C-alpha cells in the first residue's frame, strides 16, 4: 500500500506537468481551432532559454559574480554552522542560485513569449479566415524549423540547470512505508497546478475569458461583436509559449535538455486528444490518468512498459469516444 501511494504521488506529479503543457495546446486550439503540432518545440525553446539565462549568461566573464552564485556574508556564516547533509543546506544552496533562477525564468518567459508572438503574427495571422488546415500544416512545418534553429543556436552541451526550488528530500510515513519525495518536484507540481487553475479561472470567470469562449465558439460573430479576434489569437499563442517556458524550465531540471524534448510534445498531444481538444477539465483528468498509469506500470511492469501502456489507454478512450473524454462533438470535423 505504501508503495502504491509512493507511485501514485509520483504519477500525480508527472500528470501536473503534462497538464501544464497541455494547457498551451488547448488554449491555442480553443482560440484558433489550430492543433499545434509544434508545441513540444516551444517547450524545448523554453528549456533552452532557461538554460541560456540561468547557466550560459551567468557564466560569462562579464557577468557579475553574484549572478552565478550569491554568497552574502550571512549566508556564508549560516552555511559554516550547518552539519553535513542537512536539509537546510539544500535551501541555502538554492538561495545562492536564486539570482540566476530568477533571471532564467524571466528570460525564458519573455524570450518564449516573443517567439510565440512571432509565430502567430508571421505564420498564422496571414492565414486567418482562409484555411485552418493550412495553419495546422504550418505548425507541422514549424517542427523542422524550430529543431533546426535550436541546433544552430545552442551548440554547446547543455549542462545542469539550477532547480526552481530547494531540492531537499521530503520523507514521511504512510501505511507503514516511508514515502520519499523531492521538495523541488512538489513545488513544481504546485506551480503547474496553480498556473492551470489560474488559466481556467480566467477563462471561466472574467470578461477576457468570455472573449476567448466567444471566439472559440464562433469566430466571425465574436469579431462582429467588437471582440478583437486577432488579439485573442495572439494572446492564446503568448499564453501557450509562456506556460511552455515554465514547463520547459521544469523539464530541464528533471530530465536535462536535449533536442528530444520536442518529441515530448507529441505524448502530451495524445493526452490532449484523450481529454478533448477544447476542454480544460477533460485534459486535466487525462493528464492525471496518464501520469498515474505511467507510474503504476513503471512500478509493476518496468520502465519500457511505462512508455506504452498509458498510450494504449489513450487509444482505447479515443476509439470509445472519438472527441475525447469531454470534448465537443464538433471537434470531429477536423
Amino acid at each position: 500500500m505504501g508503495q502504491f501511494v509512493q507511485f501514485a504521488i509520483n504519477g500525480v506529479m508527472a500528470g501536473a506537468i503534462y497538464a501544464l503543457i497541455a494547457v498551451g495546446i488547448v488554449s491555442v486550439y480553443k482560440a484558433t481551432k489550430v492543433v499545434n503540432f509544434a508545441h513540444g518545440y516551444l517547450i524545448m525553446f523554453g528549456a533552452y532559454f532557461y538554460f541560456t539565462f540561468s547557466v550560459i549568461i551567468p557564466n560569462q566573464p562579464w557577468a557579475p559574480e553574484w549572478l552565478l552564485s550569491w554568497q552574502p556574508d550571512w549566508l556564508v556564516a549560516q552555511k559554516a554552522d550547518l552539519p553535513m547533509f542537512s536539509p537546510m543546506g539544500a535551501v541555502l544552496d538554492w538561495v545562492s542560485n536564486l539570482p540566476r533562477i530568477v533571471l532564467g525564468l524571466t528570460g525564458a518567459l519573455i524570450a518564449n513569449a516573443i517567439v510565440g508572438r512571432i509565430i502567430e503574427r508571421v505564420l498564422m495571422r496571414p492565414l486567418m479566415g482562409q484555411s485552418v488546415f493550412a495553419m495546422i500544416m504550418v505548425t507541422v512545418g514549424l517542427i523542422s524549423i524550430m529543431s533546426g534553429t535550436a541546433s544552430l543556436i545552442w551548440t554547446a552541451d547543455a549542462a545542469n540547470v539550477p532547480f526552481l526550488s530547494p531540492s531537499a528530500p521530503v520523507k514521511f510515513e504512510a501505511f507503514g512505508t516511508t514515502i520519499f519525495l523531492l521538495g523541488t518536484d512538489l513545488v513544481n507540481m504546485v506551480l503547474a497546478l496553480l498556473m492551470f487553475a489560474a488559466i481556467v479561472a480566467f477563462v471561466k470567470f472574467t470578461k477576457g475569458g468570455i472573449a476567448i469562449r466567444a471566439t472559440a465558439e464562433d469566430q466571425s460573430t465574436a469579431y462582429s461583436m467588437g471582440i478583437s479576434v486577432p488579439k485573442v489569437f495572439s494572446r492564446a499563442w503568448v499564453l501557450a509559449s509562456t506556460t511552455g517556458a515554465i514547463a520547459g524550465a521544469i523539464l530541464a531540471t528533471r530530465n536535462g535538455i536535449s533536442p528530444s524534448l520536442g518529441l515530448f510534445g507529441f505524448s502530451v498531444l495524445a493526452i490532449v486528444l484523450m481529454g478533448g481538444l477544447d476542454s480544460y477539465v477533460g485534459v486535466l483528468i487525462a493528464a492525471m490518468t496518464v501520469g498515474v498509469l505511467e507510474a503504476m506500470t513503471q512500478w509493476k511492469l518496468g520502465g519500457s512498459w511505462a512508455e506504452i501502456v498509458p498510450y494504449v489507454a489513450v487509444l482505447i478512450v479515443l476509439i470509445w469516444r472519438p472527441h475525447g473524454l469531454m470534448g465537443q462533438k464538433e471537434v470531429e470535423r477536423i
Partner: protein
Amino acid sequence: MLTIENIEVTYHHTVQALRGLSLEVPDGKIVTLLGTNGAGKTTTLKAASNLLALENGEIGEGRIAFKGQSIMTVQPDKLVQQGLFHVREGRRIFSEMTVEDNLVAASYALDERKAKADYEKIYDFFPRLKERRKQIAGYLSGGEQQMLAFGRAMIARPELILMDEPSLGLAPKVVEEIFDTIRRLNAEDGVSILLVEQNAGVAFSVADYGYIMESGQIVMEGDVDTLRNDKDIQSFYLGVGEGDERQSFRDVKHYKRRKRWLS
C-alpha cells in the same frame, strides 16, 4: 447612414455573388432587402460589416460608406465601435455560454466609447431573457434565441443594425413580437435598420423603403407602399393571385412581358 455603391463580390476568387449592387439606408429609416435564396442578401450584409475576408470573399469593385466615411478597410471589431451592428443569419448566439455572458460578449462593442452596457434595458424589453439569464443559451427556444441575438445588438448601442432574416423559423406570434421590437428601437432610439427578409409581408409592415434583389443585383426598388401594390411583387412575394411555380422574380416579369407581347 449607409451607402453601398456598385459593389462586386466574389468568393474564393471564383464564385461571383454580387454584380454591381447599390443601395442606401437613410438616417433613422428602416429599409428592407428582399430576394430569393442565394440572391446575395447575406453577402451584401457581410460586405457592409466587413466579414467577407473571413470567408475568403472579396470586394472587387465599388464603395461602401457608413456615416459618410469609407469603411472597406475597417476591421469588424472597429466597425461595431463606430455604431454598425450585424445580427447574423441563423441568430448565431454563443450556445455554450449563458444568456448573460452572451450579452457581456456584446459589451465589447462599447470598449472604445464612454458608454456602459445597459443590461437592464434589454431585460425590460425581453423579460423572458431576464428569467433565463443564468441558463445556457443553447437551450433557449428559437424565439428566445432571436431575442437574445437582438439583445446583443441593443447592448452595443448601434446607430445602424443589419438584420438577417429575423423571422426565420419562428412562429407568427413570436415574429410579431420581434418586429414590434424593431419598430420600437427605430422609433424610440432612432436606430436605422437594414432588414433582410424572405417574408415580405412582415418586412413591409415595418419598413419605409424596399429593395428587391436577384442574382447579385437590385432589380427593383421603391417606397413600401409602391412595392406593396406592385402586381409582380404581389404574385411572387406576397402570394397574392396565381400561385404557380416560378423559379424567380425575373421569370415573373419575363412571363408577364411575354404575355403582353402575345396579346
